[in-house]
């Protein structure tokens, strides 16, 4: 299959203003217009980052907490807009960033599949068609009509992941998804990821699970504290990261 560049990240930067301004009321905002003083702090989450991801690739992203991994994933997903640079993506993007998200605890698993499926951009027909696959893959058949507040974190992860891969992504963004699941499901998920990647998709995997990253990713990108990137072979980058 011919390789296409699914994600092109071209020199992007992202800044955040941290301050009181986010929680200001209308009156306070009005007053500060005149006083002109507003305590603020500028945080550079990402600076001049460039890389790309082609179809058929699993790219791992590692780095310490607060290094900007999730910000990067959100920028690829189109949730955040970069302050500088460009992001070009080709194909349908599915992002699993915070697992509990989207799932409504007081609804049943079945209702959740329909809700989250449509959040992932699936039509009702598509969800109906995929429904059995989702249930089967998650191995939660006997809980279809159970409200999911009774689910464990691992079960929710199974459910969320199963819906995400059924949504037929071209670009699958996984942010710390495998941190709660058991080994069997992890193995099964990775096999599934391999399969969709072989069919022409690409996967960006953010994880603190270094053995997982080392074993399954084709390339690894490490975002360092000073916002520079170390890119390359999984075993090399991971061992460098461990030494740091």
């Amino acid at each position, binding site marked *: 299959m011919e390789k296409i560049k699914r994600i092109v990240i071209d020199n992007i930067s992202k800044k955040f203003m941290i301050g009181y301004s986010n929680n200001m009321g209308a009156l306070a905002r009005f007053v500060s217009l005149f006083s002109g003083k507003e305590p603020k702090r500028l945080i550079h989450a990402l600076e001049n980052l460039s890389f790309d991801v082609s179809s058929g690739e699993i790219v791992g992203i590692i780095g310490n907490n607060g290094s900007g991994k999730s910000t990067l994933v959100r920028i690829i997903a189109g949730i955040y807009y970069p302050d500088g640079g460009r992001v070009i993506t080709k194909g349908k993007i599915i992002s699993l*960033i915070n697992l509990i998200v989207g799932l409504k605890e007081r609804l049943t698993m079945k209702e959740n599949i329909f809700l989250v499926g449509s959040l992932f951009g699936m039509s009702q027909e598509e969800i109906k068609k995929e429904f059995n696959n989702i249930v089967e893959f998650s191995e939660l058949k006997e809980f279809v009509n159970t409200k999911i507040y009774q689910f464990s974190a691992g079960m929710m992860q199974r459910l969320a992941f199963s819906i995400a891969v059924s949504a037929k992504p071209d670009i699958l963004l996984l942010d710390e998804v495998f941190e709660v699941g058991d080994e069997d499901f992890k193995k099964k998920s990775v096999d599934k990821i391999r399969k969709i990647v072989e069919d022409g998709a690409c996967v960006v995997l953010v994880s603190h699970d270094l053995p997982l990253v080392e074993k399954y990713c084709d390339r690894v990108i490490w975002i360092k504290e000073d916002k520079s990137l170390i890119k390359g072979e999984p075993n090399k980058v991971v061992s460098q990261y461990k030494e740091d």
Partner: protein
Amino acid sequence: MVGKKYFKNFFELSLSLAKAEFKLRNEGSYLGIFWYLLNPLLVFGLLLLVFSDRLGNDISQYPLYLLLGVVMFNFFQSSTVESVTSVLKENRWLIKSINFPRESLVASIVLKNLFSHFFEIIFFMIFIVFFKASIIGILYYLPILIFFCSFVFGVSLFLASLTAYFVDLENIWSFAVRLLWLGTPIFYAIDGQTKLYYVNLFNPLYYFITVARDLIVYAKMPDVSIIFGMIFYTLLSFFAGVLVFNTLKIKFAEKI
């Protein structure tokens, strides 16, 4: 047809969100939908009791006049207030995690309230029969409702997007709604009060409620200027709402 598919998916998503919201609200509640009816009906009953002899005495068909005003205002109020209080606040993690069309969160609130509005209208129809007014007039409500929904959707979009920037909009809006409730001729009539009339020319709700009352309760054609006013405020609210929401939505995920 990319556009058509987009709108179909958008509508399905909004409907899914509305259904989920509806189920969550009514979980374990035996009265279910009647809780929604209870509020406007109690308000209606109380106002009828208090005003029908004095204020409503010179308004013909006062119960119908009053009930239609109350349920229309209630649809506007519950949709906009929910948009201010819940859209961005309750869905912040969802917004930070998945890039779905944000407008559907507002659309789902309008749809959900439209659903309970539907029951209020059925109740209103029972009243029409009871007071022996013409039931045919209610057919006019469908086109009016299309305008009214677009108007409410626009206002809700506008308000919801501003909540990312002003945290106390919630309080401001609940105050504004109370002023609107008193300023709009819902339980009284405007006849002959010039000052009030001029103020109400700037009150969009006045147009919608007047058109609906003229056509449904009194079976007469509303003033052309009132119809134009209704269309004008619908377009203004819808396009301003969409424009403002669209401009501000790219910052939602960071601001909340």
